[in-house]
């Protein structure tokens, strides 16, 4: 990088010398000279650093691990009995529970459906329903979400219906993605959750830019309530350059964005020990000058409270980014294309399933409060399963969008070149009708017109 900088400046100087010549001498804030005998540094790059004669390297291993905030223990009881109960109504918390349950029921059905070859691909979010539902519940409908792909709970909590899920999974004519994206790449205009894209971490700097846009718009139109962006990603994605770019740019531009990292221990087969050697993702936040917290991702109350406070912080002082690292365990396989027992012990997974799980933990809380019981659980699960199967069947029977959707939306308007290619494709389809099955597509070959 320094070479690049040198090269750039070198060229640049010769080109701009002519215009900078003759401008009046200016004194910049970053070039204030050192006071004699000062005990702290006035280097422009670190203005509050004290001098020391003790040559000590900061040892990452000597620093205590960042603590993990939790509200409920694994028996569904308040850890700190002296604190007030979580600030949510019974109705709200029951909605969260049902949303978590619904995602989990859908996951089981769709995972099986993929195994039967009725769906090309699927990714479950088992073990992370608490993170997604709990955090999304702290957002307003005007807030904007950028997600990675294991955030079905965010979509569920923000009004995505079973029909929406199924239409996308089957890429049929009701899919907002117009049948273009792989399954689980959901998207919705309002409440806005940007359509998921497969490249990891690309959404993180986009979230920073989106947050900056919201901040300016809210400044220009102060009659509306200010908004934030919530951006989700896994601990593996946080190794991408885009993560670094995003947190740094969000901090320097004071963007109202909450970065929420789902640290579930694995990126496909790669355990965190091969992903990083620092104290998780949270320890990096402070390096960028970002307020950071680590929370227990299996505790929906902890996640919700952290997100609510993060949202408030993000809108304070003219906007600033916040980082939440939510710890969990990926109970499931990475995707339907993955058999995770090839790289981790079945017993480890079974242990996690038994020991701790966001759904069971919240269920225990609800039962302790007298809000839930075994009968309600059974009845709700049955209803949900039926609803999923019904939408599944309907979505599977729907036609796929017309073929013209393969060309539309590349540009705002279809180009002259594309028009020519569409007529050529139509000619091929008509000349070789036995070679193509157009029955699943709306309007068949006419769909290209």
């Amino acid at each position, binding site marked *: 990088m320094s070479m*690049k*900088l040198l*090269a*750039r400046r070198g*060229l*640049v100087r*010769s*080109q*701009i*010398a*002519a215009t*900078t*010549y003759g401008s009046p001498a200016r004194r910049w804030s970053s070039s204030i000279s050192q006071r004699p005998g000062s005990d702290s540094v006035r280097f422009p790059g670190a203005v509050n650093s004290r001098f020391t004669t003790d040559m000590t390297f900061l040892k990452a291993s000597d620093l205590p691990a960042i603590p993990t905030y939790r509200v409920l223990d694994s028996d569904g009881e308040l850890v700190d009995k002296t604190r007030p109960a979580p600030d949510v109504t019974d109705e709200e918390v029951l909605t969260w529970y049902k949303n978590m349950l619904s995602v989990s029921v859908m996951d089981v059905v769709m995972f099986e459906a993929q195994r039967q070859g009725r769906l090309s691909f699927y990714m479950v979010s088992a073990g992370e329903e608490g993170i997604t539902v709990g955090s999304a519940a702290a957002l307003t409908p005007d807030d904007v979400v*950028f997600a990675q792909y294991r955030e079905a709970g965010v979509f569920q909590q923000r009004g995505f219906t079973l029909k929406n899920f199924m239409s996308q999974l089957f890429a049929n004519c009701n*899919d*907002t*993605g*117009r049948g*273009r*994206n792989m399954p689980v*790449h959901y*998207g919705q*205009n309002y409440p*806005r959750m*940007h*359509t998921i*894209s497969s*490249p990891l971490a*690309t959404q*993180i*700097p*986009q*979230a*920073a*830019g*989106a*947050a*900056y*846009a919201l901040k*300016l*718009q809210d*400044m*220009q139109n102060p009659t509306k309530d200010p908004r934030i*962006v919530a951006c989700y990603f896994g601990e593996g994605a946080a190794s991408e*350059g*885009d993560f670094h*770019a*995003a947190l*740094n*740019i969000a901090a*320097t*531009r004071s963007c109202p964005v909450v970065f929420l990292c789902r640290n579930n221990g694995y990126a496909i087969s790669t355990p965190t020990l091969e992903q990083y050697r620092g104290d998780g993702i949270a320890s990096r936040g402070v390096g960028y000058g970002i307020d950071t917290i680590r929370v227990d991702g299996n505790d929906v109350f902890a996640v919700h409270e952290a997100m609510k406070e993060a949202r408030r912080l993000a809108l304070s002082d003219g906007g600033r980014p916040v980082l939440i690292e939510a710890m969990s365990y990926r109970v499931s396989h990475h995707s339907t294309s993955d058999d995770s027992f090839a790289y981790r012990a079945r017993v480890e997974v079974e242990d996690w399933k038994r020991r701790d799980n966001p759904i069971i933990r919240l269920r225990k809380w609800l039962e302790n409060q007298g809000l839930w019981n075994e009968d309600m659980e059974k009845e709700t699960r049955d209803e949900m399963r039926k609803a999923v199967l019904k939408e599944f069947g309907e979505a599977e029977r729907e036609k796929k969008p017309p073929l013209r*959707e393969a060309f539309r*939306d*590349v*540009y*705002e308007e279809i*180009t*002259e*070149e594309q028009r020519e290619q569409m007529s050529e494709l139509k000619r091929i389809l008509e000349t070789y009708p036995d070679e193509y099955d157009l029955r699943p597509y709306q309007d068949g070959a006419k769909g290209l017109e």
Partner: protein
Amino acid sequence: MAPLRAPLRCFAQTPRRFYSGAPTPSAKLNLPIDYKSTPILHHASSSLSNMPEFPAAATTKRLNYFQAINSALRTALSTSEKVLLFGEDVAFGGVFRCSMDLQTEFGSDRVFNTPLTEQGIAGFAIGAAAEGMKPVAEIQFADYVFPAFDQIVNEAAKFRYREGGTGINVGGLVIRMPCGAVGHGALYHSQSPESLFAHVPGVRVVMPRSPSQAKGLLLASIFEHNDPVIFMEPKILYRAAVEHVPNEYYTIPLSKAEVIKPGKDLTMISYGQPLYMCSSAISAIEKTMPGVSVELIDLRTIYPWDRQTVLESVRKTGRAIVVHESMINYGVGAEVASTIQEGAFLRLEAPVKRVAGWSTHTGLSYEQFILPDVARIYDAIKQTLEY
């Protein structure tokens, strides 16, 4: 500092630069481009007012290329609050002076520096555009756009397509970057990666040839097209190309080529700085081969490009040459030549020739031998006409 810089400045203005190739005393073709007399530029405001693309009865001002970009950006920032301008070092005016005084005029919320991260700049711009802003992001040199390649190719270009029915898109996005050779830019201050972007449906790729074109095309990219635009500025023209530019808001349509000079015997297709060399080569050939006339077309938008204007011309002339600075292998010339072969096969009287950079890197000492020059273009015209 000032006294030291004064002689430097004089030195910079002497035509002879010892670190880059100078013309031989005997050269008749490979002479430095005389931007003061080239017919490519509007040296008088009267020549502008004849052009239908410019506003009628416009007041004009002589501007160089960077001043025209600056004028377009100023116009854009004052036209809409949605327009943002950012990148590395844009706040103080930019290393090529394109954003001069804009932060003072429009405030640091709308004109600002970013950290030194191209993928961050592109990603940030995509996010801002997705929420309805019109970000104009600057990549300091086109050579440094590659860290942002993923954001441009996988994200910006595919955004509208994958969002589909949500209707969300990043059409307000423009990514500007200085490109092309300057005589001494070597490997990383000389590149023109337009063909890499032209291979990616979903982005528009534009390269204006002159100050008046730059302003009209930049304003069109920001306001009149709802698609992400890669806007490439040949940096050698920043100071060299000076012409009359309308003061007010005007736009030049994207994806529309311009016939700069009509002709009947051969069609020459190019874009950006090589157009000036094409023009010189055409003057030379028309002098040595009386009666011959060459049609010169500026593509202006490299993708999606104006295939019909090119095909129409070649169907008339029967001969074609494509000229560009970037490497010949899989370059824009390949696409143009094969389109001509498909669309004007029966009218072709000679193979379509490509004059472009050789398939190597721009080694510092070898630039003049690697990139197209007037002699090579002249030779290509001669060979094509005599085929």
